[in-house]
């Protein structure tokens, strides 16, 4: 940054004294860059250590975990992972989680897209109140809803199904999707809509053919955040399922067997839950702040 200052045409006209000052700043800046690197290095180390420890444990046998203490696996084993991938009671949890997460993402986006368009383009009676009401649902504590959900879905016969969890997660994911998409849609100039209508496009055709490609990055980001918040949630998904739709997160809590806790398998299961997020994070890295701030950065 300091280089560009010196080379900038504006800076060249500044009297020599000031330019001299700014090289002085640049010289003082040099160790600062290193300090930044150290700060970031320490912070990233702090973030990675617990995750590394989980990975480390997942590659050890249970005897090794309990009997000795080492920073890396002495006898590398993939047995814990093999167990998860071959035991149906384990891997079914991942399948269950993925089913309801994908269902939830699809539902959320399908209803949020038209609504976000309405909020970004039109003003109508009660729009501000409605927008606020949606936000309150994103902020509602799941603990408040756990018991009513349990009773509601039991009474309509949806208890312990994937769709029940998917619908329950709509509580916070639909508002999130609406807010994020609205944030992206307001960046698209309104003239595009008007031109398309003049060219004789009907609303559905315009929306699918022209508008959706324009905000494709927004749709991607909204989908990522719906996926993520549905994936990380435990309280509601655990309350609404017992056997058939039990998510991996709830299955993980049952590793306390008669012979004590199966640490290796627990760690391996944990590592596997991190994988989906880690795989896609690269694609949304520049939008992640915008997503967490509900489309408002």
């Amino acid at each position, binding site marked *: *940054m300091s280089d560009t*200052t010196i080379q900038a045409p*504006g800076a060249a006209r*500044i009297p020599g004294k*000031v330019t001299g000052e*700014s090289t002085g*700043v640049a010289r003082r800046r040099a160790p600062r860059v290193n300090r*930044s690197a150290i*700060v*970031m290095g320490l912070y*990233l180390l702090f*973030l990675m250590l*617990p*995750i590394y*420890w989980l990975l480390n444990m997942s590659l050890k046998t249970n005897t090794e975990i*309990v009997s000795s203490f080492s*920073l890396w696996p002495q006898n590398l084993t993939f047995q814990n992972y093999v167990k998860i991938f071959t035991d149906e009671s384990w891997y079914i949890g991942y399948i269950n989680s993925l089913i309801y997460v994908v269902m939830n993402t699809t*539902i959320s986006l399908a*209803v949020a897209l*038209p609504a976000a*368009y*309405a*909020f*970004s383009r039109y*003003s109508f009676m009660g729009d501000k109140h409605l927008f606020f009401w*949606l936000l*309150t*649902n994103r*902020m*509602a*504590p*799941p*603990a408040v*809803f*756990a*018991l*009513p*959900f349990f*009773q509601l879905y039991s009474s309509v016969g949806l208890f312990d199904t994937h769709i029940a969890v998917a*619908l329950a997660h*709509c*509580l916070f994911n*639909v508002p999130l999707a609406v807010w994020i998409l609205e944030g992206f849609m307001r960046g698209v100039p309104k003239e595009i809509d008007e031109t398309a209508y003049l060219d004789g496009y009907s609303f559905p055709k315009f929306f699918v053919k022209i508008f959706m490609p324009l905000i494709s990055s927004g749709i991607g980001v909204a989908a990522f955040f719906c996926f*993520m918040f549905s994936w*990380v949630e*435990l*309280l509601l998904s655990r309350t609404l399922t017992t056997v058939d739709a039990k998510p991996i*997160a709830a299955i*993980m809590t049952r590793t306390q067997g008669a012979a004590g806790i199966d640490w290796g398998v627990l760690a391996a299961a*944990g590592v596997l*839950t991190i994988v989906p997020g*880690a795989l896609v*994070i690269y694609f949304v*890295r520049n939008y*992640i*702040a915008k997503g*967490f*701030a509900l489309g*408002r*950065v």
Partner: protein
Amino acid sequence: MNKTVNQKAWFLVLPVLVLVAFSAVIPLMTVVNYSVQDTFGNNQFFWAGLEWFREMLQDDRMWDALGRQLMFSGIILAIEIPLGIYIALNMPKSGFWASFCLVVMSLPLLIPWNVVGTIWQIFGRVDIGLLGYTLKQLGISYNYTQDPFAAWVTVIVMDVWHWTSLVALLAYAGLQSIPNAYYQAAKIDQATRWAVFRYIELPKMAGVLMIAILLRFMDSFMIYTEPFVVTGGGPGSATTFLSIDLVKMALGQFDLGPAAAFSIMYFLVILLISWVFYTVMTNLDKRDSV
């Protein structure tokens, strides 16, 4: 952007309305229903009026949980906000390392919350965890299942680990929006590093920081899974926060009336904060569009 008045837009919003009404309004009305009724079992309910609310307001248990909750939210805000800003200031501005930092920092945010709990449960154990073992070797007594202080430290460090990146990412996004000309002008004025921060960076970050503070406050205010996995609310009830207490009451003991009254008061607090949040957001939008 000036919007067209169009009442037909309601039809576009209708699906959302129906869906959220099903998943929010019906359950919420159930809660309201329970909060004003009493039962002797057998699904026979009778009117109890505001009895449960009165009882909950006089109950020390709820006030204790609220106190612990406020203390927890206060402590993590006091740590995460300054630390997040500091990290954001030290992040590389562009290039490979900026992307690398963004990806690694986002990682804790994407881990399922109970796995976050599991990670720290293991990490802090004195027999098999790196943190607990190291502390033991250093001669520091540390046992988060027995000692309330250690339990609190564990839960707070875990939350800092989990969420500081969110604050840092938001602050970073705010910093990125500052034009380079501002820094050049500051350099010409021979501003100190502190002055640059105080008069350029902080005002420019104010909007996103406000979002970060409110998000962190609200999310920490309803934290459940992570402390539940690590400490289960213990030792005793040292780390029993509002949500943990509520779930214990509603699903553990099936005390429907008190739990419902509790829920409604909890929800009203959240509603109030949401309103502040909304006002901040819309003001931010207005400022951007001018």
